[in-house]
Structure formats: structure tokens, C-alpha cells
């Protein structure tokens, strides 16, 4: 079993490095961003006098990153194929307002059914938008950047049209569970947030799909060499279509979770979320040129961004300065990683 695990990571290692001794190197390289993360944790632990390390705060960080991490999981698939998805933030908004309007329906059924319906419909809307992205990309050869940019505008517009530009308020409290609830709260109290559970399930499933299935292998192959993949008989268009659909679906799910957290469906929610998702993916070691990347890396990337935000909040840094610091730290982290790889390549 453990031998199998090693060889799986080896596949991705080779995908990532393409060099000799990649097993060790890949391990180190994923640890590379991990060490950046640990460094940040140590610095924050010291500067906040341990406040950062309190269980409450750590769980808070996980809850804060959950939505971005879920979106970034879909983004990771897209970017490994060599694509990009700019529409995720707008899909978050569209799925959020539609989901919110569904839980408000007065159908006389148990409200939990409505929460489930809202989640499913939100995810479905995302999947349909992703399908539209994938369709224009694979059938009409529209560059992913352009196709998803168009969807970004369209989905945003649709959310405003749908709500008439006003947020959807007055949602039943049951709906809060998705974004703000805790697992088995009545039994064990507010310990384990629902959004963290959803994030964990999504990312573990995504990791398995990417590393263990033919679909996952094809995602890497297409990003590594599209033409070679096609000539090996892989249905490249179907894989690409699925990848954009997945990204849309996860964004839709994230959108409903965000509406739940905000206790309202906001047509202007999720603005710039695409950049957070791309940042988490890239900081996590996924290459924008395709063929390389891992879900575990994306989790680390999302954590790094989340930890910076959280640390700055704890330190009482105001939000404009936060943005400057965040951008700088992201750039610095990636530069540091590149430097380390160069040094490693020399030795």
C-alpha cells in the first residue's frame, strides 16, 4: 500500500519536475511551500503571543479558506490542462443568489429540503456555466482566457438581472448551516465547521480523482502535451469540457456556501475570487503552462493566503494595507520557491 502511494506521487513528481531524482525533489518542493507556510505560522505565533495558535483561531483560518480552497480545487484541474477559468467569481454570485432565492421559497416542505435543493441547483448552475465555457473552448477553439472572461461578465450580469440588483435577504436560519454551521453541533458543540468538512471532502475526492483515475492522468497528459495526448487516442475535448464543468460546479457549490455565510444572496459577491483561486493554485506549485500540479499544493497555497490574511487581521492591519502585504508576500513566496529550486537543481 505504501509502495503504491510512493509511486503515485512519483508520477506527479515526474510530471512536476521532469528531472532525475524527482521523487525526493518533488517531496522537497511540496515541502518548500510547506516550509514557507510553517515559517509564517511561527512568525505569527511569536508576534501574536500565541493567539494565532489558539484552536479557535486555527479553525477560523480553515473556515475562512474553505470557499477559496474549493474554488481553487476546480481551478487546479483547469490550470493543469493548461487553461484558466476567470468566471469562477461571477459563478459564485449567480449560484449564491439563485440558491438564496430557493431557500426562501414557501413550499410548505421541510426547509432542509430547500437547503439541499439550493445546494444542488447552485452546483448545477455552476456546472452549466462551466459547460458553456468548455463548449466554446473545445468546439469553437476560443482561448480559455477569452471564453471565461466572457462568462465572467455574463454570469455577473445574470446575477444582477435575477435579483434586480438587490441582495436576497431574509433567509431561514437553517440555511446558515452550510457556511456558518458546525458538524454535530448539538452533540459536540461548535468544534468542526461544516464548510471545513465540505472542503475536506471536496479536496480529498479531487486528489483521488487526479492521482488515481484515468481522467486525472489525462488531465496531466493534456497539459503536458496536448497533441501527443490526442494522438494517443485520448478524447481531449471531453476531458477539457469536464474540467471546466468541474470548475464551474465547485464554484457554484462555493457560491451557495458563501450566500449561507453572508445569510444573503449578494449579486456582487465573489468579485476577484478568481484571482484568489489562481493565487492559491499557483502558490501551491501548479504551473500556468500546464502539466504540473497537485491538490495538496493548492491546499497549502490556500492556507498561505488564509494565514497571511488572518495574521494581518490579528495584528490589526487595516484592509487596504492588507492587500499590499498579501500581494507582496505571494510574490515573495513564489520567488523564494524558485530560488530554492534553482539551488537544488545546481546541487
Amino acid at each position: 500500500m505504501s509502495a503504491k502511494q510512493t509511486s503515485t506521487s512519483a508520477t506527479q513528481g515526474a510530471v512536476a519536475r521532469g528531472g532525475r531524482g524527482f521523487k525526493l525533489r518533488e517531496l522537497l518542493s511540496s515541502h518548500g511551500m510547506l516550509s514557507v507556510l510553517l515559517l509564517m505560522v511561527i512568525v505569527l505565533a511569536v508576534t501574536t503571543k500565541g493567539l494565532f495558535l489558539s484552536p479557535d483561531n486555527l479553525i477560523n483560518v480553515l473556515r475562512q479558506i474553505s470557499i477559496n480552497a474549493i474554488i481553487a480545487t476546480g481551478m487546479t484541474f483547469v490550470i493543469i490542462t493548461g487553461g484558466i477559468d476567470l468566471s469562477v467569481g461571477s459563478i459564485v454570485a449567480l449560484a449564491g443568489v439563485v440558491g438564496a432565492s430557493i431557500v426562501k421559497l414557501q413550499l410548505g416542505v421541510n426547509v432542509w429540503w430547500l437547503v439541499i435543493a439550493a445546494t444542488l441547483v447552485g452546483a448545477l448552475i455552476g456546472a452549466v456555466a462551466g459547460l458553456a465555457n468548455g463548449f466554446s473552448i473545445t468546439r469553437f477553439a476560443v482561448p480559455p482566457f477569452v471564453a471565461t472572461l466572457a462568462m465572467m461578465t455574463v454570469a455577473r450580469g445574470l446575477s444582477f438581472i435575477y435579483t434586480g440588483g438587490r441582495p436576497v435577504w431574509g433567509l431561514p436560519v437553517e440555511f446558515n448551516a452550510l457556511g456558518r454551521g458546525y458538524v454535530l453541533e448539538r452533540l459536540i458543540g461548535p468544534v468542526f465547521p461544516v464548510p471545513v468538512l465540505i472542503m475536506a471532502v471536496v479536496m480529498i475526492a479531487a486528489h483521488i480523482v487526479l492521482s488515481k483515475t484515468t481522467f486525472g492522468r489525462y488531465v496531466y497528459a493534456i497539459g503536458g502535451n496536448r497533441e501527443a495526448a490526442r494522438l494517443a487516442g485520448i478524447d481531449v475535448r471531453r476531458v477539457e469540457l469536464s474540467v471546466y464543468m468541474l470548475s464551474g460546479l465547485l464554484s457554484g457549490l462555493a457560491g451557495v456556501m458563501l450566500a449561507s455565510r453572508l445569510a444573503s444572496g449578494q449579486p456582487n459577491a465573489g468579485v476577484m475570487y478568481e484571482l484568489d483561486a489562481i493565487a492559491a493554485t499557483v502558490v501551491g506549485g501548479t504551473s500556468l503552462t500546464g502539466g504540473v500540479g497537485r491538490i495538496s499544493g493548492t491546499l497549502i497555497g490556500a492556507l498561505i493566503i488564509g494565514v497571511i490574511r488572518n495574521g494581518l487581521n490579528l495584528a490589526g492591519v487595516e484592509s487596504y494595507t492588507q492587500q499590499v502585504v498579501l500581494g507582496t508576500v505571494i510574490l515573495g513566496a513564489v520567488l523564494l520557491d524558485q530560488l530554492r529550486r534553482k539551488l537544488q537543481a545546481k546541487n
Partner: protein
Amino acid sequence: MAVETPILEVEGISKAFPGVQALKDVSIAILPGEVHALVGENGAGKSTLIKILAGAIKADTGVIRIRGRQVTIDSPQHAQALGISIIHQELNLVPYLTVAANIYLGREPRRGARGAFIDEKTMHERASALLRELRVELDPGEQVGRLSVARQQIVEIAKALSFNAAVIAMDEPTSALTHAEQERLFGIVRKLKSSGVSVLYISHRMEEIFELADRVTVMRDGQVVGTAPISAVSRADLIRMMVGREVAQDYPRPAPPSREEILRVEGLTRRGVVEDASLTLHKGEILGITGLVGAGRTELARMIFGADPADSGTIYLEGRPVVIRSPSDAIRLGIALLTEDRKRQGLVLGMPVYANVSLATLPSFVRRWFVDEGSEREAAQRYVEELRIKTPSLNQAVGNLSGGNQQKTVLARWLLSRARVLIFDEPTRGIDVGAKMEVYLLMKRLAEEGYGIIMISSELPEVLGMSHRVLVMYKGRIQAELTPQQATAEAVMHYATGGS
């Protein structure tokens, strides 16, 4: 005997990379106005030497002298300034700029206050003069991306001349050229030579070396085996020096094929590309297809494989008509294409050997949703052993293997997919001499095991030596079908240039 001062001299150059001694005490002297051929198998150290001369990497030890003066080459720009220009296999041109703009890229003649503007007119005129010097008809205002590879190469040569290059190193310059284009390139090389420019000419093709070179240096395993005037060595000498052992000169032609038809193509057409192509392939047969570059050979193969659509035509497999709309259709039916450009179309270079081998058959390794990596590796290991693919491990990224072993990795993929018809497009391009014979022997073995093989090749000796029958294509049509007895080099060239 007068001793000429070499224009470029390297002495005692060594270079080590992690785990490899790429160059060991290499000394070569290039005389003014000579064409100096540099030959050696892949991995012999030619590329490393070129990179050092180009200023891309630094030697660990040794000296470089230009006209007797010791220099250190710091950067590619510095190399150019010193009079060394390199024409790489992959050309370094900006496709959307004009010929003139490419030649003077970064050194554009200026006009206006503080030279704020590019002096297009002067640039155009200077480029024009350079091209005239090379005696080529080429409009300096033409966009480079619209030119053929051969003409782009000429632009690179003109660029080298614009630096007043004393030595131009050409790395496999003819690998993508048609016969006529090669002849023109040879003309230009001779022209350069007569005007005193030295050419360091790297090639795998013996014919060219004997046609062009004054002297030849052979490298093997990072060392110089020897330098000799071309008149003093034979083809067999060179090959022996390169490989370090005797290599059989004869092609291992396989036993006669069976009469059982495996593939038949009737009237396959894609307008303007391939016209009304018909052919029959038998079990155990190697069917050679030759012709000039652009004759439609690769296009025909891609249509049979479903990689490109056909306008009309029918394909029969073992007598039954089949529909092939995509590569996956072809693969399911047992047809495989080994593309001419392995790196771009054959392999996912960053992926390990075993994943490249299983790429076309991955679903067959799925057990309960997941890829069973154990059996996947087992299968790959079987073919690595059977085809003797030299790799440190199954996990090695395939991009790190030599050309011959990459070719075998693609072949392993198709054997694993149980293909019965194998289409080899330029199977030995970019493969060194020793590995070529190995590829031939594999093809022979496969044919004798009953596979049907189509071999597309521009290397005439190879086609004539390996094939049971030879088809010659010209402008998208199959111009002639020749038996081995009829297929002489002259006959093939007659049909390949449009004769009937």
C-alpha cells in the same frame, strides 16, 4: 607546410554536469575558410560544445582562442561580437517581424533625435545587400513566419553575416529541408567558405559531410576521437569512430511478407493535400513511402490514423471496410502512428516512461474505478525489457531519454495497444547511428512476427534497404509503386520529382 592560425581554437575543454562528464579535454581547431564537420552520436558532446561556443554555458577548464588570441565567452551577445554565430536546429526568429527586422533585431539602424525611431529604409537596404551577397531571392520586407523553414534558415545565416561572423556553426541544418532546399543550402555554405567564413557543420548525414566538408572531427562520449581531412576517411571509418565498433552497413531486410492483406486504402483524398491515394499492405510487409518533403506522405499517414479528416476514400482492415474518425477509432482497430516529431506529437516529455507507455491503453488497467499502477508498471516493464529501452527506471521522465529510446517508448505504447498496423513516420530521424540499426532490427522482427508496417522516410537508402515495396509520392499523389528490383535511387528521384 604553412601553418595557418586557426580562426577558432578550443583546447583542453572539459565540462561536467551533475553525474555526467559531458566534455573531456576536447581540442578542435577550425581553420579560416574551411567547412569543418563535427559528427558523433547523440550524447557525444556536440551540443555541449556548441553551447560553450555560443556563450550559453561556461567550460570548467580549457581555453578558447580566436585568431590566436585567448578569449572568454560570457554570453550569447559576446559570442556574436567575437564573430561566432550559431544556427540552431530550432530557429530563433520572431515570426511576425519582417526578414530585415529579424536580421537587425536589437541593433536596428536609428534615425531622428537621439535615435528614437527605427530607420526602416536603411535597415531594408542593408538586409537587401546581405541577401544579395548570399545570392538568394528573398524580400527583406516579407514576414518571416510566412517563409519556409529553409528560407528562415537563410535569414538566420544572413543575420550571422550581419555580425561579420568569422565562424558559423550549423546544427543539423538540413534536418527539415527538401532535397532542392538542401542543394541551395550547400550552395550558400560554399559561398560562405569562398568568402573566408568558416563553417562548423554538425550533421548525422554522411552524404552531406562527404559532399561539403574539408575536414571532419569525430566525437564520442565527450571526447574527440580524431580529426582528419575528409579525403582521408571513408564512410565506414567515420561510423566506426563514432560508434566505437563496426556497424553492419547492410539493412536487415525482413523475410518476404505473407499474401494476406491487412490494410487497404482506396481513393483517400483530402483536397489540395492528398489526392486519390490507394495502397495495400500485407501481413509481415514493410511498405516504404517516400517522396520529397511536402509530397503528402505524413498527411496520408495522419488520415489513415484519423488524426486529420479525409474528404473521401475508404479504408479496409483485413478486408472489411472501417470508419476511422479519430485516433481513438484507429487505435481500437489496431492502427498505430509513430509520428515524425516524437517530442511534439508523440510523448508527454515530463511524464515518466511507464505513463507514456500506457497512455493509449490506460482504461485497460482500471480496476474498480482506479488505475492499477502495479499492473500498469508491470506491462511497461515488460516492453522496456523486450525493446531494450535504456532508462534508469520506469519513473524517469521520458524527456531525459535519448532519441532512440524515446522512439522505442512510443513503439512500446503501440505494441501494448496490440496494434497490427504500424505506421512509422521518419523512424530514424534524429537518432544516432548505433540506435538506427536497432530500430531497423526491431522493424524487421515486427514484420516477421506478422505486423504490417508502413515506413515513411526521406532517407532513400533506408527506404530502399528496408522495404518490400516502395511507393513514391509527388504533390499528394502516389506517383509510382516500385519493387525492390525497380527501386533504384535514380528511379525514386525520377518519380519523386514528378516523372512518370
